């Protein structure tokens, strides 16, 4: 590693590194993303390293553990060779065979191939996997090419060339113009035009300014930012340096939530590497620019994802939001002008500078440009991270990329935007992913979480879930949020317990509106969205709970009971033996019965019964 001193120096280093990558060895790419990590991909990688050493084939095989590819459902994922043979659910035991085939020129291991459920046929190459075909991967594509722990990989694929272009050729105002022209909007949730934010911050009074990267991804079900920060931290760093140049900041912070220790580690390593190469610190690329980044950790508070609370937390205090009568771009961190942007927003900046505003503007819809990474999860076949152009319909994402529902169940709704967002019914799946369209319909793009729900999800229960979450995470400072969310939860809980009344519906709407209008910060302002959107589109479920004391999806415990189908029960006593409450009676080979007074519907018997004889009513 040596300091890069100028844009020309950077170009020659990049060219050299790119040439080194092209070394004729067979490349094994193992996805190191969050899903694959949890499926123990690092055990697979270690096994590869060990066997390569034992067999002395270092000259023939190269291993690269990269950032998240997105197909978490099928992890651990391994790509082999230039044609990118696609293996999924790879285990350490498979490594020997894979290495044998790689070194001896070809051959495909059938059992490790992906089977397309709609055709029943196996797919050999990554390019043919349907999950990837409907996507427009830009950031995720970069993820697949780099080892996040290697700045050399990032340089080899042209990393930091956007920074070189900016420092040698673009005045700060020009950078802001370019970003504004691209149409980039904040990808953390609010969708505020990024260029406008930077311009306001640049114009704000003061010499000392800050840029902050909001990596406090707190929306449950969202892990896009984790995928980027862990998978390709240099893209974020490069984006932040460019932003700092545009705004006039000399210091930056990356605030990472505490629950992402690996992201913290990768970010720290990347920052250190950038410093060693002279890409952070003084006189960057000989331009005279001074800029450095510090990594800061959150400590378990969802509210710290709100930008004013985040800045208070950076100052070492409790994350209580401040009123936004004065915007952070004028008075933020330590009362100085501050630009807070999301991880994904920062990561898009280098591509925009490299390829130009019109390239970016050519992707997406009229008012929502570029791509968005979504975390596709829930009751859908293919879960993971997907990157789509704005304008892609929900149906495409759920059916073509997601592969449709599980076990042939019918999909009922998608929930977008986390606890600040709303639920949209299947009838609206032809809507595009677009900031304004979804907001108009009562939901939002939000951070990018997209949870699929099928007929087994109770929408009233979903509303209750989000209200419980928000009640737990509310900072508690202001009355509408603290007391309002508590009362909304009280009412929705009563409905799920069969104590709902018809007058609860207008009350939920009235209170919801009050909480939205009167709360101090974004958490409170968007807290009623899950309730209001489910009331809007799934009124029939609320009515069933209130008027008929019935939960159509069979979820709300007070309104269901478990029973054993006498036709199917063969008296094997499997359920009886596992029931923690002793609620099941019966002799061997005799039909069993459940005592509903003792049963607390924990669900253990459901999985224990091999005959599918236990049902929920």
């Amino acid at each position, binding site marked *: 590693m040596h300091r890069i001193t100028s844009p020309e120096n950077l170009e020659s280093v990049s060219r050299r590194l790119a040439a080194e990558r092209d070394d004729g060895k067979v490349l094994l790419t193992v996805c190191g993303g969050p899903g694959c990590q949890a499926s123990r991909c690092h055990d697979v990688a270690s096994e590869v390293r060990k066997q390569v050493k034992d067999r002395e084939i270092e000259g023939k095989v190269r291993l690269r553990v990269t950032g998240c590819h997105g197909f978490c459902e099928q992890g651990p994922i391994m790509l082999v060779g230039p044609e990118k043979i696609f293996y999924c659910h790879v285990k350490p035991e498979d490594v020997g065979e894979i290495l044998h085939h790689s070194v001896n020129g070809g051959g495909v291991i059938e059992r490790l191939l992906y089977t397309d459920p709609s055709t029943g046929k196996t797919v050999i190459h990554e390019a043919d996997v349907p999950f990837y075909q409907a996507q427009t991967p830009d950031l995720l594509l970069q993820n697949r090419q780099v080892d996040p722990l290697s700045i050399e990989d990032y340089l080899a694929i042209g990393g930091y060339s956007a920074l070189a272009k900016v420092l040698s050729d673009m005045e700060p105002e020009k950078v802001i113009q370019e970003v504004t022209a691209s149409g980039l909007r904040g990808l953390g949730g609010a969708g505020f035009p990024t260029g406008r934010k930077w311009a306001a911050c640049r114009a704000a009074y003061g010499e000392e300014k800050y840029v902050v990267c909001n990596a406090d991804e707190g929306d449950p079900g969202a892990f896009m930012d984790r995928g980027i920060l862990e998978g390709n931290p240099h893209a974020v760093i490069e984006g932040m340096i460019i932003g700092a140049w545009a705004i006039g900041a000399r210091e930056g912070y990356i605030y990472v939530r505490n629950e992402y220790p690996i992201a913290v580690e990768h970010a720290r390593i990347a920052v250190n590497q950038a410093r060693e190469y002279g890409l952070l610190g003084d006189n960057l690329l000989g331009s005279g620019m001074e800029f450095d980044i510090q990594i800061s950790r959150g400590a378990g*508070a969802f*509210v710290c994802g709100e930008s004013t609370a985040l800045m208070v937390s950076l100052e070492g205090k*409790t994350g209580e939001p401040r*009123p936004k*009568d*004065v915007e952070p771009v004028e008075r933020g961190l330590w009362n100085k002008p501050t630009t807070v942007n999301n991880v994904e927003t920062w990561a898009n900046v280098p591509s925009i500078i490299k390829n130009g505003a019109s390239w970016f503007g050519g992707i997406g819809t009229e008012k929502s440009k570029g791509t968005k990474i979504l975390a596709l999860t829930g009751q859908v076949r293919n879960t993971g991270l997907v990157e789509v152009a704005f304008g892609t319909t929900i149906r495409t994402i759920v059916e073509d990329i997601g592969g449709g529902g599980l076990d042939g169940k019918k999909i009922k709704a998608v929930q977008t935007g986390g606890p600040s967002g709303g639920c949209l019914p299947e009838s609206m799946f032809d809507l595009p992913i677009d900031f304004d369209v979804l907001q108009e319909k009562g939901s939002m793009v939000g951070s990018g979480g997209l949870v699929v729900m099928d007929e087994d999800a109770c929408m009233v229960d979903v509303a209750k879930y989000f209200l419980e979450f928000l*009640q*737990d*995470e*509310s*900072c*508690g*400072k*202001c*009355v*509408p949020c*603290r*007391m*309002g969310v*508590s*009362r909304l939860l*009280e009412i929705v809980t009563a409905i799920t317990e069969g104590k709902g009344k018809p*007058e609860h519906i207008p*009350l939920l709407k*009235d*209170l919801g509106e*009050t909480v939205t*209008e*009167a*709360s*101090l910060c974004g958490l409170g302002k968007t807290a009623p969205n899950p309730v209001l959107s489910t009331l809007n589109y799934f009124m029939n479920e609320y009515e069933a709970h209130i008027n008929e004391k019935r939960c159509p999806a069979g979820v709300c415990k007070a309104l269901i009971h478990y029973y054993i189908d006498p036709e199917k029960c063969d008296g094997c006593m499997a359920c009886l033996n596992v029931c923690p409450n002793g609620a099941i009676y019966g002799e061997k080979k005799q039909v069993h019965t459940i005592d509903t007074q003792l049963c607390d519907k924990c669900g253990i018997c459901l999985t224990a019964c091999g005959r599918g004889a236990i049902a929920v009513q």
Partner: protein
Amino acid sequence: MNQYVTLTIDGSKVSTPKGSSVLDAALRYGICIPHLCYLPTISESGACRICIVENIVNGESIITSSCTLVAKEGMVIRANSEKIRKLRKNIAELLVAQAPNSRAIQDIAVKCGVREVRYPFRHDDCILCGRCVRVCQDLYQARAIGFIGRGSQRYVGFPFDERPDFCKRCWACIDLCLMKETPCDGPMEIGQEYLCGKCESTTMAPQFDSGDCIRCEMGKGFGCTRHNM
């Protein structure tokens, strides 16, 4: 150098020193914006949200608490519109349902037009207005009490729940507490809470209330600054 700024509140032009809040400006002129957690000379909070107003910017209405909103030249404020009155009523309803055993809260409920309480009463003895915390921090600089925890678990307490030796025992916290005075008819038993509404007869109904101060008796309950003038 102009030390004053002029802004419009509900159609009336008012002048106020630079740096003062919209609430300060209104109270100075006798325009009643109901407020609960606000205390003059102590830092503002914006917690109770009773003092909310509409700030009209570029034709758009932004709702914010008037105690934290710094008055600027040419600002246009609506403090008594139908929308604001409805929001205040709903917030006051939440407050009285949470902590009905307080004269101040019953007073503010009437002032904001609450006629019925649609939620089951709870019997809390603190609404986290923060007056005690702020007076301890700002006036006496002791920081012996503070907000602990988050969300519905939040409460005001001492470090480690023990009175520290640096508590100055000034009792200002208790003096300013909104729960100090019980409702006029006496303290309410648990399970026997109700909306008092007695002062209703001495005030105008909210839809006729122009927002100008009528020096009502209710101001006493929460120490309305106008009452002391």
